[in-house]
């Protein structure tokens, strides 16, 4: 589709790039078919094709509009549409551009957004407020109360042994599900692989990026790049596919050489562990794997975790509509709780259809979102493995 850039954007490189992305779209509508919000609402304005059209309007008129803003805040950025698109439209990039533009045009951020952006990436503050929230649940708004079901685990510090493997601990994951990285550390030790952690690791920037606060996101990126100070040949492992997806974008976002080295060093933990043989840690063998959008659509890592689990001896059942988002999508679960919960219900129905004993996932956001309403335990897939005995 052609876009006539507004004269005010004619010299803007970002806008030109957005125009080129839209140039690839042929308006076929295939993307709508796999978009969770289009499927939920049945409304063109809540599907990728409509959103692309709204962004086209932003580029042509360069003025804030409520319709585009509402529509984009209901976009999960799951990027299922990108996987479906035969024309190769880079929707994720386009939405990133549009959100930054809208945030700039509107010039204000809602209070909830501001609180989220302040608290979630701040490890200490998050733990403090989470504990406070659990103590005074009565005062916590209904949409948040459900997320406070987990006891805050004790902090454990991981040994840093050197070596060229770096474990990213994440912010929310480090607070609420540290057992994931701890278990990975145990697996790596059993495999005889040395690893290190970085004590000054910051938020990956995903949260800010998704809400259109690009500069702040880039500040986090720079901080991580210098904190980790990687060398050629280092491997950065991410256990949260949401963070991994953003960490892999550093090169494109920042454009610098160090940033490219950084993003090229990042692997989802599945891509790394694929080469080893594991055995099942649990007796309960019938499981399903919920492949997070950030893993299958964002990082385009498909079938790898499934193979590892299968080889470990689990009976991995197929899941209907496995390309669909669970509704977590970073801050979406809090900012758009109604839609998010509806999508979660659909996802859980599909996941529980084969009657599994465990639901495995690969991202902390999905895990917490599903876990707080699921009777079937939801675990990170790493936790289901034990190193196989050498034969």
């Amino acid at each position, binding site marked *: 589709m052609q876009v006539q850039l507004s004269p005010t954007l004619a010299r803007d490189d970002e806008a030109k790039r957005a125009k080129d992305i839209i140039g690839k779209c042929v308006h*076929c509508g295939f993307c709508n078919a796999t978009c969770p919000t289009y499927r939920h609402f049945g409304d063109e304005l809540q599907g990728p094709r409509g959103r692309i059209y*709204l962004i086209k309007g932003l580029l042509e008129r360069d003025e804030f509009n409520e319709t585009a803003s509402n529509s984009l805040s209901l976009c999960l950025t799951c990027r299922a549409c990108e996987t479906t698109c*035969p*024309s190769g439209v880079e929707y994720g990039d386009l939405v990133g551009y549009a959100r930054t533009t809208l945030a700039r045009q509107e010039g204000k951020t809602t209070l909830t957004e501001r609180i989220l952006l302040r608290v979630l990436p701040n490890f200490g503050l998050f733990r403090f407020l989470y504990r406070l929230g659990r103590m005074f649940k009565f005062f916590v708004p209904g949409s948040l109360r459900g997320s406070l079901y987990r006891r805050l685990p004790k902090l454990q510090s991981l040994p840093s042994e050197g070596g060229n493997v770096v474990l990213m601990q994440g912010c929310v994951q480090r607070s609420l599900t540290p057992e994931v990285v701890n278990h990975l550390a145990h697996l790596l030790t059993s495999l005889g692989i040395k690893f290190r952690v970085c004590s000054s690791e910051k938020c990956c920037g995903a949260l800010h990026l998704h809400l259109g606060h690009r500069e702040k996101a880039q500040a986090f990126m720079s901080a991580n790049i210098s904190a980790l100070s990687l060398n050629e040949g280092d491997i950065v492992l991410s256990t949260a596919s949401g963070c991994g997806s953003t960490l892999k974008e550093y090169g494109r976002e920042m454009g610098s050489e160090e940033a490219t080295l950084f993003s090229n060093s990042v692997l989802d933990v599945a891509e790394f562990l694929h080469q080893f043989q594991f055995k099942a840690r649990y007796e309960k063998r019938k499981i399903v794997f919920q492949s997070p959008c950030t893993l299958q659509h964002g990082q385009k890592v498909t079938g790898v975790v499934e193979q590892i689990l299968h080889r470990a001896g689990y009976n991995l059942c197929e899941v209907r509509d496995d390309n669909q988002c669970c509704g977590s999508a970073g801050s979406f679960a809090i900012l758009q709780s109604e839609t998010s919960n509806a999508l979660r219900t659909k996802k859980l129905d599909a996941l529980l259809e084969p009657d599994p004993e465990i639901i495995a996932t690969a991202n902390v956001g999905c895990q917490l979102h599903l876990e707080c309403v699921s009777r079937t335990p939801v675990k990170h897939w790493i936790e289901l493995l034990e190193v196989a005995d050498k034969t």
Partner: protein
Amino acid sequence: MKVRHASSEHSSLRRHQVALNSTCFVLQHVKPIAVPNAVALELLRQELPQSSILIDRNEVEPFETDGLTAIREQPWVVVLAETVAHVRSVLRVCRECEVPLVTRGAGTGLSGGARPNSDGILLVMTKMNKILDVDAANCTATVEPGVTNLAISEAVKEGGLYYAPDPSSQIACSIGGNVAENAGGVHCLKYGLTLHNVIGMKVQTIEGDELVLGGKSYDNASYDYMALFVGSEGMLGVVTEVTVQLLPIPANQQVLLAAFNELERAGECVAGIISAGLVPAGLEMMDKLAIQAAEEYAGVGYPTDAEAILLCELDGCLEEVEQHAASVEDLMRSRGAYDVSIAKEPKDCERLWRGRKAAFPAAGRLAPDYYCMDGTIPRYEIGRVLRSISKMSDRYGLSVANVFHAGDGNLHPLILFDASDKEQMRKAEEFGGEILECCVLAGGTITGEHGVGIEKIDQMCSQFSDVELDQFHRLREAFDQAKLMNPGKAIPTLARCSELGGMHVHRGALPHPELERF
């Protein structure tokens, strides 16, 4: 056909018949269109939830076009219908206030059939997307019009059934839209178009009636109104319920992939397969550009150095499939295929089709815009017509990717161009028109499955005489006297044909000499 009257005591069906029987010859003129008015909006707001009515410019803009993006017009109002009652309300408001109405399904159509009117209402059916009933014993499913084509097959898969017509856009297109355009697809060669697979429907007319057409059995004691409504491009009524017939999933299927060095040899091979008495479930052809675009997206293993490939699917019991596959392979090799491979596992067959089904949008990788044509010709003419198209392509200086249902002679040349270049856009349209006229000259028709819409309306003048066109108009008026439904689509006014004829004087003969000129 059963007619449920809304309010009028007067039988509107009788009125329809009177109009149909009338023999007087009246020239049709486009009715002056009512100016959007506050009364209509007020009525809509009284009867529909506020969230269903979109009127702000930013809200309606994304609805200004369907799968044919070269043609756009912003609708005055968009209504997202959720129930039959909403549809009836919109129809009543349109009738009473004389507001033009365009109905839209998933907006994947390629002939501009759902292009809205700036002074009209666009009625969007995608929220009506429930599967109402699956009757496995009768092999039927009854669904709302917004259900996607593929969703029907998915819903009945466990019972070993599927819905046969499978347009390439089946993942996204709605069954209501399929009915409006009489959509086809890869498997229509053996199993027929939408028309042959829909057995019942409910239609709301703008005059306020609910028509119940067909049912769960194959024959009905009346004129075949189903045949009239399927493919009527939203001009006779709004479909609010569809009953489709389902088929058992074939026990076995195999897909042959043949590569050719010459496009025409592949065309001749198609004619050879059909004339040998074989009826493949699907027989598709792609040329070099299309192969490359599809392969780049899907990575399914098409030979990118071939000038053309044929994909031939055979289905049925194992003995039949194997025997036919062997015959087809022999035929392909004897007609010049330099390589033939056979996929036997369902996963491999699905892989081969995936590239073909994504071929249209994948052409978006070749050029900023494409213009998809839909002419149908007798199969023995495929080679010759393709040669003509390739000559035209040189003459216009625009590339063409060919990807089409070869088995039923349904061509889909994709003319590649850049719409930001006005000259290219004009050339593309002219080129498209010439392709369709070439199809008609070869003994074919201007549409195979995409419908006429706005895209091919001028070529209707080449295919039909003024008497025929006039009959179409009268048929339409039998259901919509004020001609408010999807105005300006599918059937050209004779005035339009005469103006167009003025530009194309053929061998000195002026078309439609009976019309006044201006």
